[in-house]
């Protein structure tokens, strides 16, 4: 770093944003379980400080980002480049060189850090209420802090390796939190599944990282002298990679593997719905608002590599579009409130990935930020409903909750409309951006993602309204005391025996206040991305590619489809509220197709039958091979014993038995010789000596 250039103070202290939560996690890991208040207070206090720092970073970058060449440029920036400010340090030396890590402050970082820390802070506070009776409360906040630290770390880093490190730590935190109720076999299995499935993607990411490191000699995204990994893309695009791609394309593809795993894209989406085994705040924080968006953020961060390879971008777009539509169809046929939201998350992530693939990086990031707010809102709302309905998660056993939980209802309602993309809520603007980008992508087959995306809008609106109708409208269907709560965990059950069972109840303020704040954000944040003129977000994140034209066709189609979806949902579920135990009307309408959707396109079964089975068989085969090898070595030693045993048996069975009967005369002669052969060694020796002596004499005399 050129010492003369001015670094804004917040860039110098950017590392504090992730480090504070890490420190909190470390301290609270050493605290005994009884220090509940200390642990929670520490976690919340620290995340609030991080949030404030993030806001400072945002302010700083807005100040500079909007006027990139207004006198106070930090390094010799070309005018078209995004403003950024760098800090770097050496981790260790090897050979004659060193491994440098660093942090970057740029608009992408600032926006993402703000969203992550803000949503995290709200969810931490919400958790105070939700987890209040859990006996591992202290650990919960430890893990949450660990998660927040890792997530913020990957946001602020300027180095792909540090990114990967935080990325893995995020995966660890996710593993720990999904398996938080470890005594449930399903939670333990889901945690393992999440870790391994994302690890598969991470391996690709790791390979891409190694390759990029070798090819560019650095892993810093940007360096003051413009030799960062992302600043050498032009050179990489000229080198050959694998499968006919350029080296840049190959690396991008490998990095995208990581994003597919973490962001739950097809074909590695299977872990995300299972991850709902974790406590609901975890689902909100990790599996809706922040962690799963890390994959999208990764692609956005390394976007120059992707831009260098149109083939990879095409793949990204189609995977995103396919995931969006597939997850949306699955969400339609689910009954579990959290699973619906989980598939909705997968679907929305598909939108973001599609947005990246079609070249709308800023649009995708915008959708990511907005989605972070409203999906966190929806999950926390769902948590509140589950809390209020005594741990019921089946939406067919809810209904009429609006009366009992008005705050939850209204905030949830805002979230639903935002997700469905209804004007003027956040989702409307961001989804519109993504669809516009897809529309502009090209003609012919390249319109595919746009069409799938539009279909997805309809389905999104439909399943969300189905949920609202079934949960909040009509009459409460879960009044009867149910003997077995199939989803109820011990801890979750313990959290509310203060109210009588049977009637839903509103959640405490510590839970509703975060809902209200998030609802406000979901409602109004969209205006930061108004199209037409002064599209703030676009200018801010990616001034190079800001579209300036409003596409009324896209807006019209998307809005119409969203309203159609809401209408269809209302027709099926809203007009005539369902009675208790009445089957899903969708069953009649879709028939076998519904089973297919309810069973998630049989993805799990398919993987079980192919990948998992393959690994199992491979392991067994390797193990057998090993035993065989062992057998060969040991067997060589045993071979001699085996041969003699066989020989013995042969003598015993074939020779002795066969000849015994008919050889009486032979026996007589045999007995004579047998007398000679008395089994004493020395007799033989004598015989040998005498024979030798006689033979020698005979030899001499001859």
């Amino acid at each position, binding site marked *: 770093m050129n010492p003369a250039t001015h670094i804004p103070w917040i860039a110098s202290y950017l590392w504090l944003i992730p480090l504070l939560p890490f420190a909190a996690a470390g301290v609270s890991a050493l605290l005994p379980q009884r220090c509940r208040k200390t642990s929670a207070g520490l976690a919340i206090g620290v995340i609030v400080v991080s949030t404030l720092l993030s806001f400072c970073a945002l302010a700083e970058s807005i100040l500079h980002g909007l006027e990139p060449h207004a006198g106070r440029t930090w390094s010799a920036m070309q005018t078209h480049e995004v403003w950024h400010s760098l800090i770097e340090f050496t981790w*260790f030396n*090897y*050979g004659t060189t060193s491994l440098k890590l660093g942090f970057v402050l740029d608009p992408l970082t600032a926006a993402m850090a703000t969203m992550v820390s803000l949503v995290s802070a709200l969810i931490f506070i919400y958790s105070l209420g939700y987890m209040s009776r859990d006996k591992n409360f202290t650990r919960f906040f430890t893990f949450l802090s660990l998660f927040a630290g890792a997530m913020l770390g990957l946001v602020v880093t300027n180095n792909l390796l540090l990114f990967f490190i935080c990325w893995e730590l995020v995966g660890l935190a996710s593993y720990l939190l999904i398996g938080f109720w*470890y005594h449930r076999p399903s939670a333990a299995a889901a945690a393992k599944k999440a870790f391994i499935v994302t690890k598969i993607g991470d391996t690709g990411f790791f390979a891409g990282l190694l390759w990029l490191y070798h090819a560019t000699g650095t892993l810093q995204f940007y360096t003051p002298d413009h030799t960062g990994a992302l600043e050498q893309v032009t050179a990489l695009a000229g080198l050959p990679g694998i499968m006919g791609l350029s080296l840049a394309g190959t690396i991008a593809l490998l990095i995208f593997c990581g994003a597919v795993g973490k962001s739950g894209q097809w074909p590695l989406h299977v872990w995300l719905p299972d991850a709902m085994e974790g406590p609901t705040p975890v689902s909100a924080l990790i599996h809706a608002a922040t962690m799963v968006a890390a994959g999208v953020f990764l692609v956005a961060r390394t976007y120059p590599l992707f831009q260098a390879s149109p083939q990879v971008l095409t793949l990204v777009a189609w995977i995103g579009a396919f995931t969006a539509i597939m997850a949306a169809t699955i969400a339609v046929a689910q009954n579990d409130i959290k699973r619906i939201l989980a598939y909705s998350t997968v679907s929305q992530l598909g939108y973001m990935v599609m947005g990246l693939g079609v070249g709308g990086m800023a649009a995708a990031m915008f959708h990511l930020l907005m989605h972070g707010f409203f999906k966190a809102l929806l999950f926390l709302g769902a948590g509140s409903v589950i809390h209020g309905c005594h741990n019921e998660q089946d939406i067919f056993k809810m209904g009429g909750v609006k009366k009992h939980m008005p705050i939850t209802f209204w905030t949830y309602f805002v979230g639903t409309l935002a997700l469905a993309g209804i004007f003027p809520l956040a989702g409307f603007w961001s989804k519109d951006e993504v669809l516009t980008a897809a529309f502009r992508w090209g003609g012919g087959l390249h319109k595919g993602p746009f069409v799938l995306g539009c279909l997805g809008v309809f389905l999104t609106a439909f399943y969300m309204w189905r949920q609202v109708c079934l949960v909040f409208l009509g009459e409460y269907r879960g009044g009867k005391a149910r003997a077995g709560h199939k989803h109820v965990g011990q801890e979750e059950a313990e959290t509310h025996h203060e109210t009588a069972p049977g009637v839903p109840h509103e959640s405490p303020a510590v839970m509703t206040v975060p809902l209200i704040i998030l609802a406000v954000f979901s409602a109004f944040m969209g205006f930061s991305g108004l199209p037409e003129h002064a599209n703030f977000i676009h200018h801010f994140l990616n001034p190079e590619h800001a579209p300036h034209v409003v596409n009324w066709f896209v807006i019209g189609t998307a809005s119409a489809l969203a309203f159609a979806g809401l209408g269809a949902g209302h027709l099926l579920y809203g007009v005539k509220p369902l009675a208790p135990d009445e089957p899903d009307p969708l069953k009649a309408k879709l028939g076998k197709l519904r089973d297919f959707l309810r069973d998630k396109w049989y993805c799990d079964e398919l993987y079980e039958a192919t990948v998992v089975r393959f690994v199992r068989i491979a*392991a067994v085969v390797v193990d057998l091979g*090993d035993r065989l090898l062992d057998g060969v070595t040991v067997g060589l030693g045993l071979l001699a014993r085996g041969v003699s045993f066989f020989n013995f048996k042969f003598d015993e069975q074939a020779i002795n038995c066969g000849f015994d009967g008919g050889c009486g005369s032979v026996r007589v002669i045999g007995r004579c010789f047998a007398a000679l052969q008395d089994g004493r060694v020395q007799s033989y020796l004598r015989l040998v000596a005498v024979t030798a002596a006689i033979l020698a004499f005979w030899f001499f005399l001859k």
Partner: protein
Amino acid sequence: MDENSHILSWLTFTPLIGAIVIALLPKRNESAARGVALFASVLALLEALSLWWRFDGAYAGLQFVEQTPWIAAIRVDYFVGVDGLSILMVLLTALLTPVALLASSPIRKHLRAYYALMLALQTGLFGVFTALNFFHWFIFWEAGLIPMFFIIKLWGGDGTERAALKFFLYTLVGSVALLLVFQAIYLATGTWDFIMLRDLAAGGGLAPKLAAMLQQAGIAITPERAGMLLFFGAFLGFAIKAPVWPFHTWLPDAYTQAPTAGTIMLAGVLSKMGVYGFLRILLPIFPHEIAACATPLSWLAMLTIVLGAFAAIAQLDLKRMIAYASMNHVGYCLLGIVAVAHAAGGASAHADWVNEKACALNGAIFQMFNHGITVAALFMMLGFLEERTGRRGLEDFGGLRAVAPVFAALFGISAMASIGLPGLNGFIGEFMIFKGAWPVITPFAAVSLIGLVATAIYLLNFIQRVFAGPLNERWAKFPDLSRRELLATVPLVALMFFAGVCPAPFINLTNTAAMKLVMLFQPAVQAVSRVTGM
């Protein structure tokens, strides 16, 4: 550097003195053996730490050298010293022995013999890692083998006969191969000295001498083949010890049957003897041969990694599982070493092969250290598990986290270090190895990445079956770690964090030596970048 301090000799023989003291203890005073052993091993640890303190990482040559003629007739010197290749191994040995002794409480019979053998083993290990003359290096090498054999046999589990015998025969074959190789080398060159042999080999003088010697014996052989022949012999010796697939079948039995402390030493340190042999002997003394064999060796490294990992998935016995995991992790070291030997090729924007290879080699050495720490912790905790319950089947437990949270947490951290989670030690070594190996042997490195995923599969399976799920009522009274067990475990876990977050102090120790070794394989570059003070 104080050349006359004899610190290495003191370090090497401190445990032996302890062993002799134990042997002289009166029989009724058996329990004192434990105290004496601990004292001697802690003393050795302190000496090793002082060695570390005084070690100059920037100096590429040997330090604390002691050289005196010993058997003049066959030119055997007592010649010891440490450099960056061995300092971490000396530290590892010094560190793990007290830990293993702390984990020895299940030993109930023949206490004196047990502790004396453990200390003798430590002396053997120190000797192997400091000796620079084949003759007494080999004596120590064997001296490490014999106590181990008895430890497995006398204090091991039910199947010790087979395990001990297999261990003994396998390693004996390796030792005989090594001995023959060095006899031939001695006859051809008249020296046992590793350093002289390295210089000779670097000048290309070793193989012709060998061929000449064999020709004199009436065997017509080209220098290339002569060198290759001896390389294979030495390779066999180290491949069995490491072990490298397919010379590994002694490993699961020996690791499983040995008592906990024995397994800690076997997996933690003895397996490093093989890899150390690659560093100290195969790379410097057979540079051309190992370079010529780099591709087959890459196959072996890859197979060791992948097959080890898959075999671990299939195991239902936890100790066997971790045994295969250990093999899998040693495979990474080998991958890094092979990358150094491989003739680098291909186009690249930054064809900085020396640094790539130095990275791989540093990574391999660091991985040896890390793996020693991690696998020792894993085996130790498995030992605690077995000690408490008498079981070690994958399906015998369940939900232990509820009753033993500290145990679960420490085990989880160790498992994560083994998986290679960033922030813990395993990641640094693996990252550096892969970083260096990737450009050199891309296909092998890429396939080896499967090993990383497979490691996650079996270790998470382990955690899920043993620590998560509903509590197996049978173990409702399972005690959490005692103070003594914490004393043995926590330092290792702390070291995992430290090495994972601040690898620089460790890599600084090894870097110059690694660079020097890499330069042997990059003669063209040597002329240009002579920066490391050869």
